[in-house]
Structures are given as C-alpha cells and as structure tokens.
C-alpha cells in the first residue's frame, strides 16, 4: 500500500503519541491523535480547545467544536476553565500547533506576514497557541516545509519555541519543554539539545538533503544519525483511511 505524503505525516505524528494527555487541533493533529487512540495508545486522553476533555469521536471533526467532541467526552469545560485550570498549570503532555512561519528556534508566526501595522497577509492570529506553546509538556508542529514557511526570523512571534536560543524559555519562565518535533512533508526536525536549533533528524523516503535544504530559509543542519522515516504499516494506513471525516 502506498502512503501519500499527508498520510505519512499523520502516521509519523501518531507514532509520537504514546499515551497521557494530548491537546488536539483540527486537521492532521486530530487525525493523528484519533489514529493513535485506535492503534497503540488506546488510553490517550484527547482534549479539544473548545472544552471537551477525554473526547472519543467516531467521526473526525472539521472544527474544534463539532458536536460529537462534546457528546463523546468524559466532560466538557468552559473556555476559561480550560485555559486556567487545565492548560496553564501544565496538565497536558503533548499539544499540536500549526504555523504559517517557523524559524530556526521553532518560534511560530500565525499573525501577519509583513509589518504588523501594514500586513502583506493578515493571518488568523494567535488563538490558543501562545499559551499552548508555553504550558504544554511538549509541542508537535505539523507544517509544509517551504522557504516561505521556514524562515530565518518570523515576521511576528505569535508563539515561542526556543526564543533566541538556549536558556531563553527558562528565562521567560515557560514551563513546557517547547517544540520537540516538527513534522513536515519532507521529514522531521527536532531541536538540538545544545543549541535549540531545529535540525533535520529524519527525511521521508526518497527525499534528499538538497530538497530539505532548498526548502529551508536558514542554513539547515542534519543530525549525525539522520534517519529515514519508517513508512506507514498496512494496519496504520488502513486504520487511517477508515477514519470517517466530518
């Protein structure tokens, strides 16, 4: 069975979810989390920003507030309680974020391309991202790897990855460990433990270093033990393709 790139990205993300609590977004994150729950992480607790805690949707939602997220949840909380009692104290172990721009230190922009007061492109904005990036145990980013998205410096820092580099999260008092995996259509980047710089730790089958370098707006480094992303298994693919979409 041949996996599409989208499927490969989703399965790669799903494999990184081994249990505990997961703060889910819409799209691939929701697919990945629900795939993990059906395969290797049946006890994974899914939390959606709109309030549902312990959702077990049968249909993958189109919005983070779809009805079944609530009806299938262990319980539903209001937005204030979600952020203040649950997210802020660090009760969520993994969270997903998207990005319009991401930089070398995994800082994320979802606000504007261009100057804030005179944007070239006005993006949707922050949503839950700044506090997710600050407080969740770790963050997984899913994003297409292009020169437009992978920039030397984000135009606007909507969510903090590693800020200006080593020690910056700690100086800011951010409690979570920050982005630990950036899953792209070319491979996986992870922060170098010493420099906090995102380095390519895996390439998808058939992707070359040159392709990755060309798609990155900073001088991309590759891990010494650069891996090839394992292809989805037949079970993973069948299960993923069997997930009903809302």
């Amino acid at each position, binding site marked *: 069975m041949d996996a599409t790139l989208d499927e490969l990205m989703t399965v790669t993300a799903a494999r990184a979810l081994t249990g505990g609590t997961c703060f889910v977004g*819409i799209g691939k994150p929701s697919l990945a989390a629900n795939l993990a729950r059906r395969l290797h992480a049946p006890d994974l607790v899914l939390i959606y*920003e*709109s*309030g*549902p805690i312990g959702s077990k949707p049968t249909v993958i939602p*189109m*919005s*983070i*507030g*779809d*009805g079944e*997220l*609530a*009806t299938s949840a262990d*319980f*539903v909380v*209001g*937005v*204030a309680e979600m*952020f*203040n009692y649950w*997210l*802020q104290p660090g009760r969520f172990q993994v969270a997903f974020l998207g990005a319009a721009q991401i930089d070398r230190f995994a800082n994320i922009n979802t*606000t504007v391309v261009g100057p*804030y007061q005179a*944007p*070239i*492109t*006005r993006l*949707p*904005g*922050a*949503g*839950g*991202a*700044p*506090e997710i990036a*600050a*407080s969740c145990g770790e963050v997984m980013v899913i994003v297409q790897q292009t020169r437009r998205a992978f920039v030397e410096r984000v135009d*606007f*820092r*909507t*969510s*903090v990855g590693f*800020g200006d580099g080593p020690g*910056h*999260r700690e100086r*800011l*008092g*951010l*409690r979570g460990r920050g982005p630990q995996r950036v899953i792209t259509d070319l491979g996986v980047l992870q922060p170098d433990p010493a420099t906090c710089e995102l380095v390519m730790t895996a390439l998808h089958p058939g992707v070359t270093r040159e392709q990755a370098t060309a798609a990155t707006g900073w001088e991309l480094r590759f891990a010494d033990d650069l891996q090839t992303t394992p292809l989805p298994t037949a079970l993973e693919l069948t299960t993923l393709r069997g997930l009903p979409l*809302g």
Partner: protein
Amino acid sequence: MAELVSLAEAVHRHVRDGDTVAIEGFTHLIPTAAGAALIRSGRTDLHLVKMTPDVVCDQLIGAGCARALTFGWGGNAGVGSLHRFRDAVENGWPRPLALDEHSHAGLVNRYVAGASGLPFAVMRGYVGTDLPAHNPTISKVTCPFTGEELTAVAALNPDVAFIHAQRADRAGNVQLWGIVGAQKEVVLAARRSIVTVEEVVDTLDRRPGDVILPSWVLSAVAVVPGGARPSYAAGYYERDNDGYRAWGETSKTRESFTAWLDGVRSS
C-alpha cells in the same frame, strides 16, 4: 429581568452606535442571526468582540458596521480565511478596522475579570511573544508573595453581549448545553445582554453539563429558530460545513459579498 421580544426590537432597544458589542459562541451556538439583525438595524461604529470572529463578524465587518475588533483567532475553521476581515485589515475596505488582538486565554480572562467585577486578571500568557508590544490591554503584574512577574490583562465589560442558546422559559431564564464556551462570562461581564434561543419551553429540564443564565442577569430574549446557522445548536441541528464553505466563496470578492449584503438589507 429579560423581556421576550423580537430580535429586531432587542437590537433597537439595547444597541447604540459606537457600542462595544461582544458576540460569543465558541465554535458552537454562534449567534449569526443576531449579526444579520445588527446589519439591518443600521447600527454602526461598533467595536466588535469575539474570541473566534467566524462568519458573523466577517459579515458585520464587510457591511461596514465595525470600527474595531477584539479577537483571538480570525479564520473560517476548516475552510480558510475570513475574507472580509482580511480585506478590512489589509486594504481598509469598506473602512479601516482597528485591531485589539489577544490569545484565547487572554481574551477569556478579560471576560473573567469583567464578570468578576475586577479591573484585571492575572495569567501566564503572551510571555516572549510580540503580542503585548501591539496591545495596551496586556501588561505585567508582580506577585506580592513571590516576586514573580506575571501577565495582566485588562477587564472587558462590553456594552452589549449577544449569545445564542438552545432554549428559554417564559420568565426569560436561559439554558444552553454542549460546548458552552465563554457565554456565561460574557453575559456576566456585559452591561446588557441579548440571547437568541431555538425555542421557549414551559420548564427548563436540566441537562448534564448545561449552563443556566437567570432572567435577572439578561436584558432580552428573542426566539430565533436556526439562529446559530451555519454554526450548530446541540440537540437541534448540526454544523453546516457546506454553509461555511459557501461563505468562503460568497465573501471572497467585494462584488459577491455586496450582492449578499444587498439581499440581507432588503430582507
């Protein structure tokens, strides 16, 4: 005590030009019909507030009713951009739109402070981001016990809040359930509040996870079946995903939007 009136009458009585108007419903129970009623009322210079502006604010912005927007995430969930919002911010069409931009956590805490009769709320948030530099309603406060520096956000007390709920009783008490968002907070923070409901019933039989808003904290209740479409009302109708996609098309150009707006204004 809330009066049961028509939506047009509720808008007429409780909304003034220039008001700060919060519209809540976090991915559920979005009071879209109330937005159309605002457009028809001709009220203008509004400062809109919504964590997720959604279709309802896109329509009001495109119609030129808004001078400012306080928000958290301005996209068309699952579809793409809010084109009227973007056109106003990027091109000032039909008029410039001042932005008061927050995270969801920050904006909901502004409602919490407003609902609690406090001038600000404390949180961990925005730290290290570029948001505070562009927003005077985000500041710092020092813990008097530990010396730790935390984020403060200013209370938000809208002039008027609009929400949509599943039902009300004849005394104007309101019940909603499912994803309950920040509806309680926005109503308690607002000076006046207007609730559209799917129906009026004799008795509000309680439901697990429901929220009751007593009549004595509300200004008006209006029966508007389907008033949350293309959003949904748990127990009444599903999210109209095609409706959101259709809005993506309708709103894409000024021309197609204006045709839509003419239809609303003449209806």
